[in-house]
């Protein structure tokens, strides 16, 4: 029974997603019913599986077994994925043009299933398969508007994360070499150099998937996709995979000395840099994308500090509010007709949406008593446990987060001048479903605030079966001061109308484009690689093949030379032999040996004929040479045989 639950958790969304995708736009209301029912069922199964924690395995080939299980740290994420998936798909059912909607929705349902598989994976092979399938479906989600530039952007995103995927290959190879299996559980037996390789591979894979520095810009490329796709990819699938994997494997990888410090380093740099990007980024969705990198950076810090449960808790809180905010951004873009924050200020036109958005931005800013604030405080505590300055920097990253959260709220949903642009009845596609989805997510986010109570904290410990970091007295007050200061700064800037668009200085624009990292990668890696490829192609045509042509030409030349030699020397010899024969015959004739006459003349005639035939061999036709060569070869073989 329990095995069936695991199977259903993956197969139900994947298969129904593929069916919806394949049936296309003709299916009418079946689409909505099919998508929502299958995801609701998935959610139910996920809850069941999180409670029962079953496991199952499948023999793949000789000596290789695929394993799925519900690890302690996976219990909350498997429910989160199904829940967020349900909310986002509900929004997607009313979003965008009708043409192609069924396919987009189908892909989104399917990506929930592959993400569940990723969370359930009990061995590196299963993990790798799910990992790449999530990447593939994300490519499909981003590239869906294939007539424009989206596929190129999707390709960039796919390749950036594929660099990380190679890390998983590496980790799988090293794990097999060390333990003879791909089991995640067996990783703790590995040690020494091979464990180091595993750690390098896992960290690379996780950093790429979770859009950490230097891979962060792929999330900007991914913004070419439709908004529901972003909502799903950033909150609970795809990007979440990296942080989840690190948290899951933290106990095994902690044996590598540099693993903790490096993970903290990557996370901190991304949290601070991503925060700065979001502070100045002029577009709504890209602001949120940069903040995604930054918050996964916080999860990296928690893992590096040795508290994977904290990372998972923040993953859940972040998933809830980030999905909510992306839907909100999608509504704002639809309502204002622009992706830039500058033209929005929809507070008067869309008051309900603005209110629901506030729940998300408050959580993003880590304002108590929301759940997001508690999980962020836990990250501060974990960081402080590693080193006080780490905790301090996490507080600073939190301040940035509070600032851009306020920026998003004030600029996108601030109360603009009355009656500004358009009447309140402006239609936003699927506003009702969007509001509903946001309300559900906001409700869950508020409910998550229970973790502030001792009871809630105990539940976190129990569900993750892990410990939480000790807290210091200064942490919460410091965070609160930082929060208030950051929000106040945002309000001040907003009053002077400088919040939506940062100062036009070139430097800030570059920061907003993720420090031009994508450009740097393009100039430093992509362009040289393509140039190298073109060069290699020319080299292959001109040089490598030229070798063959030289040999061929040489062969032809040689055969010509031989032919001439044949004419001059061999043939001359034959002619000479003929002449010799005639001459001898003449002598003999002169001597008068009549009885030999006939014989000699015959020999002479035969020799002459042989000479003429010998010349005829010299035809200049390749196939005849070839035949000759083959005959020669057979002779050679026979000689070899005889020689033996």
């Amino acid at each position, binding site marked *: 029974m329990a095995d069936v639950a695991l199977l259903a958790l993956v197969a139900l969304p994947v298969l129904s997603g593929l069916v919806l995708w394949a049936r296309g736009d003709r299916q009418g209301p079946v689409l909505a019913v099919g998508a929502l029912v299958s995801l609701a069922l998935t959610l139910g199964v996920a809850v069941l599986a999180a409670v029962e924690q079953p496991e199952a395995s499948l023999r793949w*080939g000789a000596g290789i077994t695929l394993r799925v299980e519900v690890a302690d740290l996976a219990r909350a994420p498997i429910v989160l994925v199904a829940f967020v998936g349900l909310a986002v798909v509900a929004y997607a059912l009313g979003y965008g043009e009708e043409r192609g909607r069924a396919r987009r929705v189908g892909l989104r349902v399917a990506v929930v299933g592959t993400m569940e598989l990723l969370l359930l994976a009990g061995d590196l092979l299963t993990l790798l398969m799910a990992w790449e399938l999530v990447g593939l479906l994300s490519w499909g989600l981003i590239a869906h508007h294939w007539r424009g530039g989206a596929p190129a952007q999707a390709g960039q995103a796919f390749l950036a994360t594929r660099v990380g995927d190679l890390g998983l*290959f*590496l980790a799988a190879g090293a794990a097999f070499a060390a333990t003879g299996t791909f089991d995640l559980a067996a990783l703790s037996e590995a040690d020494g150099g091979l464990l180091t390789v595993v750690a390098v591979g896992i960290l690379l894979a996780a950093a790429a998937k979770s859009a950490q520095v230097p891979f962060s810009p792929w999330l900007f490329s991914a913004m070419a996709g439709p908004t529901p796709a972003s909502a799903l990819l950033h909150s609970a699938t795809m990007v979440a995979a990296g942080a989840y994997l690190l948290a899951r494997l933290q106990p095994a990888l902690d044996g590598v000395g540099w693993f903790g410090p490096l993970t903290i380093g990557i996370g901190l740099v991304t949290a601070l840099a991503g925060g700065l990007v979001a502070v100045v980024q002029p577009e709504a969705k890209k602001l949120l994308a940069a903040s995604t990198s930054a918050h996964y950076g916080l999860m990296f810090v928690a893992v590096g500090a040795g508290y994977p449960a904290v990372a998972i808790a923040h993953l859940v809180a972040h998933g809830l509010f980030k999905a909510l905010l992306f839907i909100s951004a999608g509504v704002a873009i639809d309502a204002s007709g622009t992706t830039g924050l500058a033209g929005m200020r929809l507070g008067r036109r869309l008051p309900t949406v603005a209110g629901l958005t506030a729940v998300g931005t408050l959580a993003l800013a880590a304002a108590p008593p929301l759940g997001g604030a508690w999980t962020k405080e836990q990250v501060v505590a974990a960081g402080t446990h590693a080193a006080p300055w780490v905790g301090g920097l996490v507080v600073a990253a939190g301040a940035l987060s509070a600032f851009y959260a306020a920026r998003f709220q004030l600029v996108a949903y601030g109360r603009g001048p009355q009656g500004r642009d358009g009447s309140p009845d402006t239609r936003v596609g699927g506003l009702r479903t969007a509001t509903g989805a946001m309300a559900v997510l906001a409700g869950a986010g508020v409910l998550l605030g229970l973790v502030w109570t001792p009871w809630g904290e105990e539940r976190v410990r129990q569900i993750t079966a892990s410990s939480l970091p000790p807290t210091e007295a200064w942490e919460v007050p410091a965070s609160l001061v930082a929060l208030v200061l950051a929000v106040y700064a945002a309000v001040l800037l907003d009053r002077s109308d400088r919040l939506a668009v940062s100062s036009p200085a070139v430097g800030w624009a570059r920061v907003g484009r993720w420090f031009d990292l994508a450009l740097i990668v393009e100039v430093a890696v992509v362009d040289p690689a393509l140039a190298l490829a073109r060069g*290699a192609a020319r080299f292959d045509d001109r040089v490598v093949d030229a070798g063959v042509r030289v040999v061929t030409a040489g062969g032809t030349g040689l055969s010509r030379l031989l032919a001439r030699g044949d004419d001059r020397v061999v043939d001359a010899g034959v002619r000479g032999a003929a002449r010799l024969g005639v001459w001898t015959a003449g002598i003999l004739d002169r001597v008068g040996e009549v009885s030999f006459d006939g014989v000699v003349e015959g020999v002479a005639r035969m020799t002459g004929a042989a000479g003429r035939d010998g010349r005829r061999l010299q035809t200049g036709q390749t196939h005849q040479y070839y035949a000759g060569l083959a005959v020669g070869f057979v002779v050679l073989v026979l000689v070899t045989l005889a020689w033996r």
Partner: protein
Amino acid sequence: MLTAAILIPALAAAALVLGRSWSESATRIIAVAASAMPLALLVGMWIRYDTGGPQPFQLVEETDWIPTLGVGWRLGVDGISLALALLAALVFVVAITYPVELRGRHRQYRAWFLFLEAVSLGVFLSIDLLLFYVFFDLSLVGMYFLIGRWGHGEARAAALKFFLYTLAGSLVMLLGFLALYLQTDPLTFDMRVLIAEQPLAGRGATAGLALLAILVGLAVKTPLVPVHTWLPPAHVNAPGPASAVLAGVLLKMGTFGMIRIPLSMMRDTFETYAPVLVGVALLSIIYGALVALGQTDLKRRIAYTSINHMGYAVLGIAVAGSLGSGEEAGRRLALTGATVEMVAHGLITGALFLVAGSFWTRTQDYDMGHYGGLAGQAPRLTGAATLAAFASLGLPGLAGFVAEFQIFVGTFSVYPWVAAAALLGVLITAALFLQMVQKLFFGDLPDRLRGFVDLGRREALALVPLLALVVIIGIWPTWLLDLLTPTSEAIVSAFGAR
């Protein structure tokens, strides 16, 4: 039964040559039926084959041919050759079904195809070294005529280059075969004896030279860098189905030969020189991928990815023969992966070349820059090509991944740095296939292509079995691995038993 699998297409080919009055549809039916029968027979053999049974060679059929020289009509299978023969038979059925411009010579076209099927099956099924050699060389003849007479562009030059290049390679290989043969007593070409006796074991330089000769011949056929330059022109100018057979069946003869002959019959020597072969394979992997990325011609790009993929297969084989008795699990994985790669590459690249052929029949143009936006115009073609492209770049859930993952993990256990470097090839292949899909199917549709027709029924029918197997092997490879693994295990463990 094995004999019948070879004789039926051969006889049908002869009949087609003689049957002057037959119509186009009649020859089509005959050709399809005659090519499908070996497939059916081989499936029967597969059912009778016992994966737990003796290795190597079951279902042996044997008749004396030239007893004084120790040559016999000897056929038999192990897991690897059975899998490859099945693949070959399937690819032939598909290729023969695939519609192509026949230039009024349908009888000859189909006769050559059937002839080629017979000799290709002969290569995989024969367990006599000379018989293997004869079939190996005859396959060149069939392909020469298919490219030269039904190709396009500079077909004749390409066909001649293909023929001479690979013939030169196989003549060198024959010298190596003879060196093996001459050490047997009594003289025999029987592979079972050659495998059991390891005739050149402990013969130093002689054995090294023989190995070199054999490997050079097989490397040309595979092909490995730097003896690969016959491949792109042959593919570009060949008709689609011939390309599919060239990539799907003929290239496999090179890697299959490596497993059957040097890896099985010259273990000692192979082990000594395995690192060199590893190096050449790595070069092929990275160089092939890089050059493929630099191509603007659709078919040349696919052709160069073949060099990359066959590089993986050779890497697996070379790793399997390294290290004597150490890391047995990893080496077995590498060899199993190499054989899966052969099957997967046959299916995937076969499908890709058929798709490329469909492009040619519609526009006579392989330049990727001239295409775009076909996703709306030809969704079936887009789906088939995209699936094949993702399979080729090694996406999990599709056959290529099953192969490359095992090769990679196996290689890592013996040569970690080589494995890490080979990953670069995985990345480049991903880039080049994504770019290909993007250029062909996405973006704006050029006006010239408004009349571009989607895959027809016969084209789709031919592609479906190939792609279906790609998906099935990707999702549930157990049945294939269970067929291959006992054989690769036997080959690898023989290294330890000295």
